[in-house]
Every structure is written in structure tokens, then in C-alpha cells.
């Protein structure tokens, strides 16, 4: 990272969202540097001019360590290392949401697959098992009954990583074939979409379709509170509606992808520009 550039975008994989942000910076003639995190390294010490770094690294381990290293050198990192850690771990997210008094599904953590089976007797069936880390609905499995749970947990027990054998369980929420994704930037809800799918996993990466959702005051307030609970300045908050009409916070994403949302929004709001606006509230960014 150059010692003279005060604003940097850290990203290895330039997805549509990163490109929207880089284009917004370029269009607005804001001096910045795109840093490929695969080539970045840092020797302990001061970075010189305190840069503001938008952390868009797609890999959680790289994003977390980069944020810690940059913060230790005096940079302002968005999202912060703490927010990245909280959002990057489903249990820590759930604990932060519950700690903030926000509605979230009943959740249990079991330190072994055997303990998970016991926990499920209390949590009840159907339930859902999720990896602590990961995104896009990968390796999330429905557990309709004990027999399925025994089978899935046998596979979990065989996973090589000790962390992968820590089991995160959640009650099954009978959502109405959709969830709600809200993008929050700088403490303000920018926009929301429904993500509809035939599959019970309503991730866009799994084929869900985004369509605009009215950003009601209740949805906006819940999403902003969820982002604050995990200290995320820029966040994609996932909400689900249960059968009783209540809305629950499912998770918060620190590296929100918003190209589908932007498509649904059209020209009404530019999420990338809202992110850039937020970065400009930090110190240093200047015109090229």
C-alpha cells in the first residue's frame, strides 16, 4: 500500500460490487488505490499517512488479518477488524444480536457433534445446522428429524478442522419463501430487497431472485440495530419473517454484495456512492 495514498480499496477478487465502488471513486475523481490483497504484506510499524482502507477482501482469514494489521499501523479500516470477526463467525454474530436484545432465531452451540445431538433434543426438530464460517448458504443443512441429524453430524465429526467440528444449530423458521436483505451504510438503511427462492435457502448465490422490498421504518430500524450490534459500518443484514408476523435477524454480512440489489434499485439510489460518501466522512480522502 502506497504511503502517499490516503484511501485504498483492498480486494483480491473484483466482483460486480467492487467494480461499482471503484467506478464511483473514479467518476468522482477521488484519489484512491486498489490494492490486491494477494500481494499485500505489512511489516509491523507505522504506515505513515493514516490511510482509510475499505476492506473488500473476499476471504475471511485474509480480511481479518489485513484489518488487524492495518489498524495496528494506524489505518482506519472499514469494516473494522472487530466487525469482520463478529460478522465472520455465526455464533459470535448471534451472541452479539442476542446481547443487543434483537430478535433472532433460537440458536445453540455444541462443542462436539455428540453434544449437538443432545442439544437438538431441547431445540427440537426441524432444525438447521450451519458452519460457523462461510457464506452463500454453503454447507447449511436442514435437520428434519433425529435420523437425519445423526447422519449429518457423523459427517461433521469426520471433518479435519477442529473448528469445523464445533456445531452451530438453529431452530427452523418457516419463512414465506423469501428473506429480506437490507444494506446498511454508516448507520442508515440504504435499501432492501426480498430474495425469493423455491429452495429453503434464499441465497442469491443459490439462485434466489432479488426484488425491491419497501424499506419500512421497522425494517430499517431493525437492520440498523443489527449492524450496530456487530459494529459494522457497512453491512448486509439478513432478516426473516416467521409464521407469526415477527421479523428476526438471521445474520449480518461485513462484505455485502449488492449488484443484485443495485439492479433492482435502478438509478434511484447508488449503493456504491453511498459507500463512497461514508468513506469521505473519514479523514483524508481528497480529490485527484
Amino acid at each position: 500500500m502506497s504511503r502517499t495514498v490516503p484511501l485504498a480499496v483492498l480486494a483480491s477478487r473484483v466482483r460486480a460490487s467492487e467494480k461499482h465502488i471503484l467506478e464511483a471513486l473514479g467518476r468522482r475523481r477521488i484519489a484512491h488505490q486498489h490494492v490486491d490483497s494477494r500481494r499485500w504484506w505489512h511489516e509491523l510499524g507505522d504506515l505513515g499517512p493514516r490511510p482509510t482502507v475499505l476492506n473488500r477482501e473476499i476471504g475471511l482469514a485474509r480480511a481479518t488479518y489485513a484489518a488487524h494489521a492495518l489498524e495496528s499501523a494506524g489505518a482506519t479500516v472499514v469494516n473494522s477488524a472487530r466487525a469482520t470477526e463478529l460478522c465472520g463467525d455465526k455464533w459470535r454474530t448471534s451472541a452479539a444480536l442476542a446481547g443487543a436484545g434483537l430478535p433472532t432465531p433460537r440458536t445453540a452451540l455444541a462443542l462436539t457433534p455428540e453434544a449437538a445431538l443432545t442439544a437438538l433434543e431441547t431445540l427440537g426438530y426441524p432444525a438447521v445446522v450451519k458452519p460457523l464460517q462461510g457464506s452463500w448458504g454453503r454447507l447449511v443443512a436442514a435437520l428434519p428429524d433425529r435420523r437425519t441429524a445423526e447422519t449429518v453430524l457423523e459427517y461433521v465429526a469426520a471433518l479435519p478442522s477442529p473448528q469445523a467440528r464445533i456445531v452451530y444449530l438453529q431452530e427452523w423458521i418457516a419463512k414465506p419463501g423469501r428473506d429480506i436483505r437490507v444494506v446498511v451504510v454508516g448507520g442508515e438503511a440504504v435499501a432492501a430487497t426480498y430474495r425469493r427462492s423455491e429452495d429453503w435457502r434464499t441465497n442469491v448465490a443459490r439462485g434466489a431472485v432479488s426484488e425491491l422490498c419497501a424499506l419500512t421504518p421497522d425494517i430499517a430500524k431493525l437492520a440498523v440495530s443489527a449492524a450496530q450490534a456487530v459494529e459494522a459500518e457497512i453491512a448486509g443484514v439478513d432478516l426473516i419473517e416467521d409464521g407469526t408476523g415477527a421479523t428476526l435477524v438471521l445474520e449480518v454480512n461485513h462484505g455485502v454484495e449488492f449488484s443484485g440489489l443495485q439492479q433492482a434499485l435502478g438509478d434511484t439510489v447508488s449503493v456504491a456512492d453511498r459507500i463512497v460518501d461514508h468513506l469521505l466522512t473519514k479523514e483524508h480522502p481528497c480529490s485527484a
Partner: protein
Amino acid sequence: MVTCPECESAVVPAATPVIGEIVECGECASELEILTLDPVRAALAPEIEEDWGE
């Protein structure tokens, strides 16, 4: 225009490509990563890793 290393089809990047940008081959759906801009060169993008996500 770049050639897909997987199926050798022609892939047209965006009008203003960015280094690191991911483009999809319309023929075989392989993901390509833009490596250089002048000339525009691309290679197969890295495989998705376990901790990748939002």
C-alpha cells in the same frame, strides 16, 4: 477480447475492465480474472475457497 483458457472461446470484457475483475465465459461459464489491461489478458480465476463469502 480474450480467449477462454478452458474452451478457447472469445470472451469480451467490459468496456473499462479492471485488474482482478471477474468475467464469465459465455460458452463454458468458466470464471476468468483480468490480469493485465494493456493488452487485456485473462486467466482462469482462482477456485472458491472455504472461507470466501460476504
